[in-house]
C-alpha cells in the first residue's frame, strides 16, 4: 500500500534543460534580465491581480492603521478639518467598551459552535455524498443551494421557522422544548442559533471542498484497511480523516475567517445584534461606528484588533490541524 503512494513520479527523459540555450544557457544574465526575470511578461500578467490586491486589501489595511491612530473622520474634498494623532486612544476606547468586549465574546461563542460543527457535518456529508447512491446529483445540489441563495431571502425563511409562532415552536411546543423567550430573542440562544444558521448556509461550499479532497484519497488504502479487518468506522477514522487533513485545515481556516467577519446574520436575523447585544459582533459594531456614526478611527481599531485575533487563531489552527503542511 505504501509502495504506490511513496513512488516518485518519473521525470520525462526528454524534459528540456532548466536553462535552454535560447534563454542564455548558463551565461550570466544581463542587468535588465536580472530585474525583469526570465519571463518578463509574467510580471505584466500578474500586475492586474496585484493591483487588485493592493487596492482592495493592502492600501485599505495600511490606511486603517493610519485611521486607528488618529481622530479620523470622513470629510469632503478640500474641507478644513482637524484629524489629530491620538496614539492608542482609539484602541483604549474600544477595548474598554463593554459593547465591544461583548461582541468579541459573542463571536468566540459563534466560532466554538460553528467551526467544529462545520468540519464534522461537512466531512460526514461529503463522505456520504461520495458513495454511489440514487439521486446523488440531487442531494449534492440540495446541500449547495443555501450557499448560493441570498442571505436576505434565507433569513426570511428562518424567521418563519424560529419565530415565536414559527413552525419549530409549533412542533416543539407540545413537547415543552420551546425556550422562553423564543430562540431569536433569547440572550442564551441567539448566538447559537446564528451559528447553526451559518453552518447550514455555508455547508454546501465546505462539502464541495471535502468532496474534492476525497478524490485524492487512494482507494487502495481503503481496500488494504478492509483486508486488515477494519470496519467502516475504523476506515473513516484511520484512512479518510488523515487523508483529507489538508482540506480540514482549509475548512477550519476559512470558516474561522468567515465567522469572525459575521455581519449579515445578526444584522437581519436578530435585528442588529439583539437581544440586548447578545448577538452583536465586532464587524456589526465596526459598521455602526465607521459608517453610521462616522467614527472610522474607532472602527479601524476594532478591525485591527479583529485582524490580530483572527491571525492568532489561524496560527493555532495551523499548529493543531495543519500539521507539517
Amino acid at each position, binding site marked *: 500500500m505504501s509502495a504506490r503512494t511513496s513512488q516518485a513520479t518519473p521525470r520525462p527523459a526528454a524534459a528540456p534543460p532548466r536553462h535552454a540555450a535560447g534563454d542564455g544557457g548558463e551565461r550570466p544574465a544581463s542587468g535588465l534580465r536580472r530585474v525583469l526575470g526570465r*519571463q518578463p511578461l509574467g510580471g505584466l500578467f500578474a500586475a492586474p491581480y496585484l493591483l487588485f490586491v493592493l487596492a482592495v486589501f493592502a492600501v485599505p489595511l495600511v490606511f486603517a492603521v493610519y485611521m486607528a491612530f488618529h481622530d479620523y473622520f470622513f470629510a469632503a474634498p478640500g474641507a478644513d*478639518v482637524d484629524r489629530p494623532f491620538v496614539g492608542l486612544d482609539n484602541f483604549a476606547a474600544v477595548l474598554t467598551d463593554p459593547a465591544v468586549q461583548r461582541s468579541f465574546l459573542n463571536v468566540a461563542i459563534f466560532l466554538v459552535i460553528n467551526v467544529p460543527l462545520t468540519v464534522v457535518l461537512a466531512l460526514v456529508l461529503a463522505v456520504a455524498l461520495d458513495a454511489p447512491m440514487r439521486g446523488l446529483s440531487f442531494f449534492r445540489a440540495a446541500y449547495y443551494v443555501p450557499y448560493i441563495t441570498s442571505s436576505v431571502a434565507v433569513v426570511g425563511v428562518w424567521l418563519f421557522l424560529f419565530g415565536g409562532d414559527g413552525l419549530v415552536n409549533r412542533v416543539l411546543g407540545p413537547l415543552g422544548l420551546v425556550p422562553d423567550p423564543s430562540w431569536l430573542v433569547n440572550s442564551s440562544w441567539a448566538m447559537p442559533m446564528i451559528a447553526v444558521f451559518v453552518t447550514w448556509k455555508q455547508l454546501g461550499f465546505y462539502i464541495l471542498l471535502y468532496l474534492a479532497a476525497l478524490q485524492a484519497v487512494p482507494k487502495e488504502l481503503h481496500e488494504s484497511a478492509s483486508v486488515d479487518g477494519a470496519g467502516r468506522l475504523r476506515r473513516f477514522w484511520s484512512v479518510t480523516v488523515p487523508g483529507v487533513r489538508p482540506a480540514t485545515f482549509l475548512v477550519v481556516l476559512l470558516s474561522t475567517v468567515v465567522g469572525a467577519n459575521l455581519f449579515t446574520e445578526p444584522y437581519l436575523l436578530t435585528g442588529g445584534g439583539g437581544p440586548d447585544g447578545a448577538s452583536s459582533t465586532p464587524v456589526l459594531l465596526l459598521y455602526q461606528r465607521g459608517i*453610521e456614526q462616522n467614527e472610522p478611527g474607532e472602527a479601524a481599531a476594532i478591525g485591527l484588533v479583529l485582524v490580530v485575533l483572527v491571525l492568532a487563531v489561524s496560527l493555532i489552527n495551523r499548529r493543531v490541524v495543519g500539521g507539517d503542511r
Partner: protein
Amino acid sequence: MRTRAPHRAAVATAAALALALPLGACGAPQAVDAETAATARGPITIWYSNNPQEVAWGEQMVAAWNAAHPDEPVRAQEIPAGTSSEAVLSASITAGNAPCLVFNTSPAAVPEFERQGGLVDLDTLPPGEDGQTATDYVTARSGDLAEQYASEDGHFRQLPWKSNPVMVLYDKEAFAAAGLDPEDPPLGTYDELLETARTIVGSGAAPNGLYPSPSSQFFQPWFDFYPFYAAQTGGTQLVEDGRPTFDDADGEAVFDLWRTMYAEGLSSPEIYNGDAFADGAAAMSMAGPWAVAAYTDTVDWGVVPVPTAEGTPADETWSFSDAKNIALYSACENRATAWDLARFATSEEQDRLLLEMTGQMPLRSDLLGTYPDWFAENPAYVPFAEQAARTVEVPNVTSSTKVWQAFRNAWSAGVIFRSEPVGQALDEASSDVADLVSADAARGERS
C-alpha cells in the same frame, strides 16, 4: 531561481502602480470654490427618494423647471441604493461627487454632514429676486417650526421640506371584534392604551396591540419612544441646551408604559418579517400620512393622537415630525441654480402637488389654511395636517447618530428585553448622551 523572485515581484508591483497612478489621478476629487459657486448658474444634478409617489412628483417638478429654464437644465435620479440613504450621501460627500440637491436629507444626518464639510450654509447664497435671504425664506415658509432645523450657529444648512407626523393608527375591524368602539376608541391615556391592548390581545382580535420594530438600529426610537415623549412633554427634544432631557418623570413614564407593553405580551420583541399592521399582527401602528394611501385598500383604519399619561386634548398633543429636508451639497458648482430650484420645488404650487401626489405634509405654517379645498376633498389627511403644526424634530447635535444608538441600546435593555430596571437604563442613556454631547462641544471648541 529563488533569488529572482523579488525582482519579479518588483516588476509586477511597478506595473501595477503604473496602472493605478493614472487611474487614481483621474479620480481624485477636487474641492469646489465656494465663492464662485455661490453665484454660478448652469446644469445641476439632484437626487430624490425612490418611492414611486416621490419619483412621480420629482419628475414633474424637474420637467416644469427644465421647460422654464432651458439654460439651467436639471438632471434628476433616485438616490443610489445602499444600506441607507445616509450612508450613500456620506460616501458621496467624501468622494466629492454628491449632487447639488438631495430631496430626502434626514435632519438627523445634517449635523454630521455639516461636520464633514459636505453642506452649504444657505445664508451664503445671494438673496432671491424678492430680496429674501435663505433664513428669510425658510422662516416665512415654515414659521416657528423652522427654528429646530437651524444649525448651532443659527444658519440653515437644510431647507425644511416635508413631515410625516407620527400618530396612532388603529384597525377598526379588530377593535370592533374586541368589543371596543371603533369610532371612539379609548386611547387617550396610558392606562386606556394598556387596557385597550389587553382587550385586543385577550380577545384574540389581534396577537399584538402595538408592534413597532424591536430592532437595535439607531432610528427606531423615532417610532416608539420619541412620539410618546414629545406628546408627554409637550414638544421637548431629546437634547436641549446641550443636555439630555429624558431622565425625568416624563421619560420614566414612557419607559414604564412600553416596558409593560412588552412584559405583558402586548408588543412583541421579535422582528416581524412584513407589515404587522397590514397583516393583522397588530391592531395599532405608529405611522404618518403616508399610511393613508398605503392602508386604504387593506385596512379599515382610524387615527388618534399619541396618548399621554394623563390625557391631552388632540389640538394640544405633540409628536415626532419624521421630516425629510432639502440640502445643498458642497460639491455643487452651480449653487445659485440649485437654490433657485430648491425655492421652486417648495413653492406653494409645488407643495400642493407634493400633497396631492405623495400625501406627505409640506413643512409650511398654516397648512390647512393654505390648501383648504384639497383638505376638504381629502379629509383623511386632516388629522395629520393638524398634527404637523405640533411636531418636534431630532436634536441638531453633531453626534446625533451616536446619541440615538446609545439611547436605543438603553431602551433595548430597560424596555424591550428588561435586562435592566428602567431607572438604571434611563441613567445610563442619559449619562452616555451627556458624554457624547460634551465631547461634541469640546471638539467644536478645539476646531
